[in-house]
């Protein structure tokens, strides 16, 4: 006989997506436990940049969802919200050094106009960049309204406010759903819960073997401190806008983002490699990133690299995240596959996942875009193949 549930919901994974979901669930009055194999922000959310950006998203579903999440994240950062002091607003700059990149910036301007805010173009032209941009930059688009938050800081902020139980380091080894609830098998015991949110990032395939999620590593460079404020916002190569939709590889001129941190340090990122080894870094790749970064912002040449590290993104075969209840076991809601966009999407996704768990409708106007993320798209495809 099934025992009464220990919790209303078990959130598996204390990354930014799990933490946001836990906060949204707890706010609905549910009893929540967050379980992680190592601890908060142990995987991608603790090894990434934190751009909350719509400019870099593929037009269509991703751009619309990112835009919604940007607007919502700004609200979560207002007085009384969980992300106050964590999310910050700042200008962002997109730079071109070739005709193809200039063209990509033209597309960007059109995309931003179509989204209708909160991001808006404040300047566009050869001289629209901040002082100190390199001489090879031929066009710059400056935006207002985008922002930044560090993944680990957001995780800590959500969990500090959520009023949830925490369980780590504890690995979830299996899930078994029945009509009354879900049994969560941990290393040393079982938990009985009514519902599960599985926000396991790249490790999702260990529990859900059929998911088309693959690891895609990115290397990042952290510099020492410059006087804070020398660069007002991140510089992004326009080729980055193209690369997000193109196939990965290591081109000679890699797409690069130079992100000024509040400490005065710079984060230079990031490469895309088809493996999942977060300990693997190589000089050739980071040198190409550094060289391209210094072309955009020559003052970087005076900085020192203090650390090179890698994070692993969860990439999905069709480029869209996987969010929604499992067809076979609707008590289990998946939220994974955010690849390079999970910091940006985490606010909105936490809210929508909580609505799904509560059996409520998702946000009005976003129904079709959220339905596009459903894991059911893969079972349909499988069915057709059979």
């Amino acid at each position: 006989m099934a025992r009464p549930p220990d919790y209303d919901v078990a959130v598996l994974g204390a990354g930014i997506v799990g933490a946001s979901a836990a906060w949204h669930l707890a706010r609905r009055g549910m009893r929540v436990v967050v379980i992680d194999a190592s601890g908060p922000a142990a995987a991608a959310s603790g090894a990434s940049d934190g751009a909350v950006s719509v400019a870099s998203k593929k037009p269509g579903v991703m751009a619309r969802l990112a835009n919604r999440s940007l607007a919502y994240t700004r609200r979560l950062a207002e007085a009384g919200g969980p992300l106050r002091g964590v999310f910050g607003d700042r200008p962002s700059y997109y730079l071109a050094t070739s005709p193809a990149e200039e063209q990509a910036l033209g597309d960007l301007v059109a995309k931003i106009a179509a989204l209708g805010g909160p991001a808006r173009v404040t300047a566009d032209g050869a001289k629209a960049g901040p002082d100190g941009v390199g001489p090879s930059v031929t066009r710059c688009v400056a935006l207002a309204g985008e922002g930044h938050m560090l993944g680990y800081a957001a995780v800590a902020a959500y969990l500090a406010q959520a009023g949830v139980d925490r369980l780590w380091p504890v690995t979830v080894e299996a899930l078994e759903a029945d009509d009354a609830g879900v049994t969560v098998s941990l290393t040393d015991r079982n938990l009985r819960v009514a519902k599960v949110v599985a926000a396991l990032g790249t490790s999702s395939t260990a529990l859900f073997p059929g998911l088309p999620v693959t690891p895609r590593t990115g290397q990042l460079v952290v510099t020492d401190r410059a006087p804070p404020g020398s660069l007002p916002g991140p510089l992004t190569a326009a080729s980055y806008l193209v690369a997000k939709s193109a196939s990965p590889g290591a081109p000679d001129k890699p797409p690069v983002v130079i992100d000024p941190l509040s400490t005065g340090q710079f984060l230079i990122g990031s490469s895309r490699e088809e493996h999942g080894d977060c300990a693997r870094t190589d000089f050739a790749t980071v040198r190409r990133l550094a060289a391209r970064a210094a072309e955009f912002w020559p003052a970087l040449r005076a900085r020192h690299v203090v650390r090179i590290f890698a994070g692993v993104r969860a990439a999905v075969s069709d480029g869209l995240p996987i969010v929604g209840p499992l067809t076979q076991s609707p008590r289990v809601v998946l939220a994974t596959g955010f690849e390079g966009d999970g910091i940006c999407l985490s606010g909105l996704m936490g809210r929508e996942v909580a609505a799904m768990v509560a059996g409520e409708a998702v946000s009005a106007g976003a129904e079709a875009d959220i339905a596009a993320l459903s894991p059911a798209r893969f079972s349909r495809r499988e069915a057709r193949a059979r």
Partner: protein
Amino acid sequence: MAEPRVLIVGAGLAGLAAAVGLARAGFASLVVDQARAPGGAIHRQPLPGVAAHGLPAQRRRWQNLRAEVTAEGDRIEILCNHRFAGIDADGVALLTGERSRFIRPAAVILATGATERVVPVPGWTLPGVTTVGAIQTQLKTTGEPPAGRVLLAGSGPLLCAAAAELAAAGNPPVAIVEAGRPFRHAADALALPAGYLAEASAHLARLLLARVPIRCGMHLSRIDRHGDTLVARAEGGGRHLDFAVDRIGLHDGIRPNGYGAAGTTVPVALAGDAREALGARAALEDGRRAGAALAARLAGRPVPPDMSPALERERAAQQRLRRIHAHDLGARLVAIGDDTVLCRCENRTAGDLRALGGDPTDRELRLRGRFAMGRCQGRFCGEWVRRLQGDDPADAPLGAVRLPVRPLPLADLIDAGEPDEEN
């Protein structure tokens, strides 16, 4: 491109001895050192025009080794003024300096020596407070002791050695504050190898002559700056003493410094203090051993054991030295107040560590606590963070030590060019 050589990092006793060991087995090596000239910590070479220092026996040991290196001709190349930034997952090593470059060595020997430990006390980051080793380096390279009143504090045989060198150079320290009680361990002291005893008595004779007081069983509890003067308070055995000085050297032993090759694919070996901090005599012996062992490994021959009777002797002597200087480190750490800086790079205090609460993961210590995230990547603060949390410092540093080994000028990285794709 030339046959891939072995890269040896560090041109101290261990590095050069390893190069000789390899050369005698037919393997060529490139020895890199960030210093201006070979020598390492103990045979650090003076600036041009400055007289050489050190005891005659030590100088002879160094000259003999240099002659052995010379005898190997072009099998050993020494490259000074260049720093090893690390070797990556592809087996590419980055050397930076006047001409930064990538190389693909056949193997790496880290003979990078040891670094000093300093138990944090309030004020240890003030200007004028350095490690004892930094004072020694100044003395060895310029021939000049630091000006004004000098205080040496901490624990270990280096305090007396450095104080004797200062005395010989004409500026003995106003006092030595030693946390242990070395003079109460006569039996252990007399059982030390003769060379150690001779060195120690030479130092002590100098200190006696210069009337340098040695305050045993005491440690500094804080350092303050009043105008131009540093005021250090020493406590222990229920009393305290204040010292008003111009310069303070702190030292609590040394720890191995073999970083930068954790994630690579080529064979990596450690030699000398980088493997185990056993001092100069062992470094020479261990360098020879490491060179011969790596040569055997590269040639596919059986690898000799990694200890020898001579190394065992040095290890036993170092253990004896540790017993002689033993003291209650726990009591010093418990007294560390919230305002004491633990991580100098990111200015993080004991209070910041305690504010993380309960039982933070290494990830949280790094990301939220910002420990081990600065220039030194936790090589200095890691042990104290661990100990304050009641954990085994053998686990330090916190998490993986990442590339580069030291802060790397971005311009040097860019100017190194593309790593050679062939080979």
